[in-house]
């Protein structure tokens, strides 16, 4: 007698419908907060007819599993990392083009660009309805020794990165030795010196306390790291047009809030890290990275029109 309350209820006739949302982060993360906000908005806009159950920390499976569950309609919404999704759709690499944004505000502003909308539309070939992008802070570099003012400062350093083709390509060109190590190993590996540094956002740096083992943070803003918010196309199609509108409105409101929150957290985290005693420096002049950046961006924009137009919009 269990499970009948899951996906099958009708939305009309006054019955309530509960959507399942899954994501990979912990409950303190801004993506989880955004999902909560979405639930609130949805409930308010539908007069309580629609609400959500959130499954954080990959409780319903890894991202591979989430995508498949979205395709078959057994999961309703997913917050998928751009890192994983870029291995399924090339145009998403646009977000990983190095030194495209000076700060998180600039990156977040591009979520409304035509190119970003195009990326979301392309997801329909996978049975996914791309709804929006949300952010988790830009990527910076934490090292055990020294700060980064040019690629020379990275030469020969073993740096843990997120394993994704575009990110990896950038890092290989810097002369560092990029290592795609799983997260649970990172803390101890920094401590023992298996790696010399990490490519990281401030939120993860503050919560995972990596600064206990490496105290030199350079604010490079070399990339951003969004989540792609998607809905199961099958589930979306089963909704009435009014409800479809409510879903889109709720998500857009929630992400507007989430982006502001992420930007606020970026500031707050930075102040906190400084207070703890992390040695913070800014990358004053990214021009020494220009040659590397150009190689990567040229290659990717020649492969994808979307990336090309994304970069053009970013320059404006």
């Amino acid at each position: 007698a269990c499970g009948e309350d899951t996906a099958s209820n009708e939305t009309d006739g006054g019955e309530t419908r509960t959507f399942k949302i899954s994501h990979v982060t912990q409950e303190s993360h801004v993506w989880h907060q955004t999902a909560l906000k979405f639930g609130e908005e949805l409930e308010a806009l539908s007069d309580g007819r629609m609400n959500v159950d959130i499954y954080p920390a990959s409780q319903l499976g890894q991202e591979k599993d989430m995508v498949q569950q979205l395709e078959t309609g057994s999961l309703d919404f997913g917050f998928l990392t751009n890192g994983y999704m870029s291995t399924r759709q090339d145009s998403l690499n646009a977000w990983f083009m190095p030194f495209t944004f000076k700060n998180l505000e600039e990156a977040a502003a591009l979520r409304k660009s035509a190119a970003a909308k195009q990326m979301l539309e392309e997801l329909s070939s996978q049975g996914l309805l791309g709804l929006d992008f949300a952010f988790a802070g830009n990527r910076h570099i934490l090292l055990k020794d020294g700060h980064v003012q040019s690629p020379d400062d990275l030469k020969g350093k073993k740096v843990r990165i997120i394993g994704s083709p575009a990110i990896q390509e950038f890092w290989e060109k810097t002369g560092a030795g990029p290592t795609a190590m799983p997260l649970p190993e990172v803390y101890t590996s920094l401590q023992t010196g298996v790696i010399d540094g990490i490519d990281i956002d401030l939120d993860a740096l503050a919560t995972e306390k990596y600064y206990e083992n490496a105290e030199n943070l350079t604010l490079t803003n070399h990339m951003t790291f969004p989540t792609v918010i998607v809905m199961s196309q099958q589930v979306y199609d089963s909704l009435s047009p009014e409800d479809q509108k409510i879903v889109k409105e709720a998500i857009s409101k929630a992400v507007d809030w989430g982006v502001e929150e992420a930007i606020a957290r970026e500031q707050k985290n930075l102040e906190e890290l400084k207070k703890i005693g992390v040695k913070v420096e800014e990358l004053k002049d990214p021009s020494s990275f220009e040659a590397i950046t150009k190689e990567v961006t040229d290659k990717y924009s020649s492969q994808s029109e979307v990336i090309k137009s994304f970069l053009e919009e970013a320059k404006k």
Partner: protein
Amino acid sequence: MKALHRLSDWVYNIEKVIAVILCAAMLISLSAGVLFRYVLSAPLTWSDETAIFSLIWLSFIGGSMSIKRQDSAAITLLMDKVHGKARTIMLGAGLAVLLAFVIYIFYLSIIWLSSPTIMMQRSSSMGMPMIIAYLSIPVSFFFLIIHTLELFLNNFKSDEGRRIA
């Protein structure tokens, strides 16, 4: 029956060869990873992925082998006390459910790998098509069908009924 028995043995021999290759691949790629990172300061980006994909293949192929060898962990508490015909029937029922399960997973995995989005998926470090790793499931469940079917038929042939564990 005899043909099935021979087929099952033959499959097991293939599995042994695959297992040896996979174990070696895993050991070599991880050791090379340490060597290149620590001694040569030039980390390899493919070593971890190669090792993980070998492990996945090894797990499913080994899982099939353990059914053939009747080596997997099972609770024998009750069946040790049951004898004769009752034992044959009860073991047969368990094997029948197991057989249905491996056939069903095999069928599901074929459908899964026929979906159009499978070809879009590539591994994150090497960019290897994920289907190479995913194929471990239909292949090993196909082998499992052969081994389980042999055990099932064998169970009714012998008087005492053989143990699965």
